[in-house]
């Protein structure tokens, strides 16, 4: 039996075999033994679920405990310092994150929503190149983030764009990384708007773009917003690609877009984490707390947004 390559027939065969086994088992049932097995199985399932939840929850708890001593205002106002780690902070890193993420948002909203609108409303599905574009987007969603770092290094820092190791390069690199997320979410949101709305609009003599701009996009807005928030949350937490586009880990001056060094929060945390002194461990954990609080807030907001505006058409 080849479950994977069997196709629909193979799956049906499997399911039928399973059903047959279930019937035989039920009729030949050894009542008490089966009940015991069933209970043991449920226990196993619950154990797995507990591991899944507590495993990651313990991370949150550990970070909170470890980093709590350093949670003071200095965390935000002080820049990094090797000499006096007790007072070092994340100021330049946080500012860097703000700049970089600002650039990311400026890029992914028009590009992502634009691509989604094109694919859902303007593209002819039967044309091969449109299917090719869709396949591309699905592939990009699975490419490791460090490969985007390579892309950024070769094309944006050097190569055609030659921006150098600057914040704008980081914005572009991260934007390309999370763009598939925005496109996927926006497409779902646009698709969820009933076609009867578009039909009604076009029947009045509106053009396709007028229909999209005035009916479809406003109706799809909550879903699109959710996608953007989730993408931004992902971008905030990324460090690997930024290591390659010059997120220098020791920046003492405030960043700017197109010149000078910059750093971001996760990269700075990484830098502190690699140092042996325990002071830096605590500092790193404190940074993790800050980052987790922000991300938790964003993700929860996005999920709340999605649930609240999930319209019953």
């Amino acid at each position, binding site marked *: 039996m080849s479950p994977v390559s069997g196709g629909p027939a193979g799956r049906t065969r499997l399911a039928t075999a399973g059903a047959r086994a279930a019937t035989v088992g039920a009729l030949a049932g050894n009542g008490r033994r089966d009940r015991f097995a069933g209970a043991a199985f449920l226990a196993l399932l619950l154990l797995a679920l507990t591991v899944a939840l507590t495993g990651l929850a313990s991370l949150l708890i550990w970070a909170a405990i470890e980093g709590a001593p350093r949670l003071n205002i200095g965390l935000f106002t002080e820049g990094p310092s090797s000499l006096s780690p007790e007072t070092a902070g994340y100021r330049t890193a946080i500012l860097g994150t703000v700049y970089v993420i600002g650039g990311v948002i400026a890029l992914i909203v028009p590009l992502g929503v634009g691509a989604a609108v094109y694919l859902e409303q303007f593209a002819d599905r*039967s044309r091969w190149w449109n299917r090719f574009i869709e396949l591309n987007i699905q592939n990009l969603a699975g490419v490791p983030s460090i490969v985007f770092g390579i892309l950024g290094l070769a094309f944006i820092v050097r190569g055609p764009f030659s921006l150098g190791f600057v914040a704008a390069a980081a914005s572009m690199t991260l934007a390309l990384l999370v763009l598939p997320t925005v496109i996927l979410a926006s497409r779902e949101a646009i698709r969820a708007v009933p076609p009867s*709305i578009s039909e009604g609009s*076009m029947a009045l003599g509106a053009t396709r773009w007028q229909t999209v701009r005035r009916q479809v996009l406003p109706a799809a807005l909550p879903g699109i917003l959710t996608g953007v928030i989730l993408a931004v949350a992902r971008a905030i937490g990324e460090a690997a690609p930024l290591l390659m586009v010059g997120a220098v880990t020791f920046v003492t001056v405030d960043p700017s877009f197109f010149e000078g060094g910059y750093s971001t929060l996760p990269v700075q945390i990484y830098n502190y984490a690699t140092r042996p002194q325990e002071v830096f461990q605590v500092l790193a954990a404190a940074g993790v707390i800050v980052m987790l609080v922000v991300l938790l807030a964003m993700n929860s907001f996005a999920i709340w947004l999605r649930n609240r505006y999930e319209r019953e058409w």
Partner: protein
Amino acid sequence: MEDGGGRGLAQRIEVAEPGADVSWTGEKVFELRDVGVTYSGTQAVKGVSADFFSKEITALIGPSGCGKSTLLRCLNRMNDLIPGAEVEGELRYHGEDLYGPKVDPVQVRKLIGMVFQKPNPFPKSIFDNVAFGPRVLGLDNVEDRVRTALEGAALWGEVSRRLDDNAYGMSGGQQQRLCIARALAVNPDVILMDEPCSALDPISTGKIEDLMLDLKEDYSIVIVTHNMQQAARVSDRTAFLIVELDADEENRWGRMVEYDVTEKIFTNPSDQRTEDYVTGKVG
């Protein structure tokens, strides 16, 4: 008007009073010659030839699957929105070829409006629903147009105090009249209606039928309906379509069988198939 009892009609169908102007020489709004539609190579309807007249209500009736809605959608180029749809034959609107090379479908739809089977108001306020058309078309005096349209759809009295309410809070019948008002607001020449009452209760249906008879004075109306009595009640002329099978019974498409003054279709049809349908012998 004679009772068609001698012909074995199952029930007496009330027909609109034949007016003196039901002639065949009036102004034509649509002229169809051998019109057909295929969807990605599959024929949906074929060989329809008829003249629809201005300021009249023309009904398209027939069993389900006979292509009435498909035919209706040809008249305002809504089939263009379906990939793979192709229209054959000649279709003229006030003498102009509707599918000519320079014709802009968007322009066509400004002149020929449509009301759909399931009411589809926009997720906006009542006012914004009706105002959408004029705004998008760049017309002025939007407020006056909205009011006029709502009056024309016999809805003004019910909603004048709550124009900012969301349209989704209305009942089905009201929503459909809202859709009619929405279509009226852009001042079309023709209004197409695709089974406008099939999702509504009898009282709302009655209101909309009365509305249609009022609207006929200013607009030409073509309506698709599977409710024969409705066609008999409101329309001036009726076209009857059937489903036709090809020789091997593999493909099927719609074809028009008879097109005539409504009274004649329902009391004295020329074709046996028409009579079978209107007397309820076949579904």
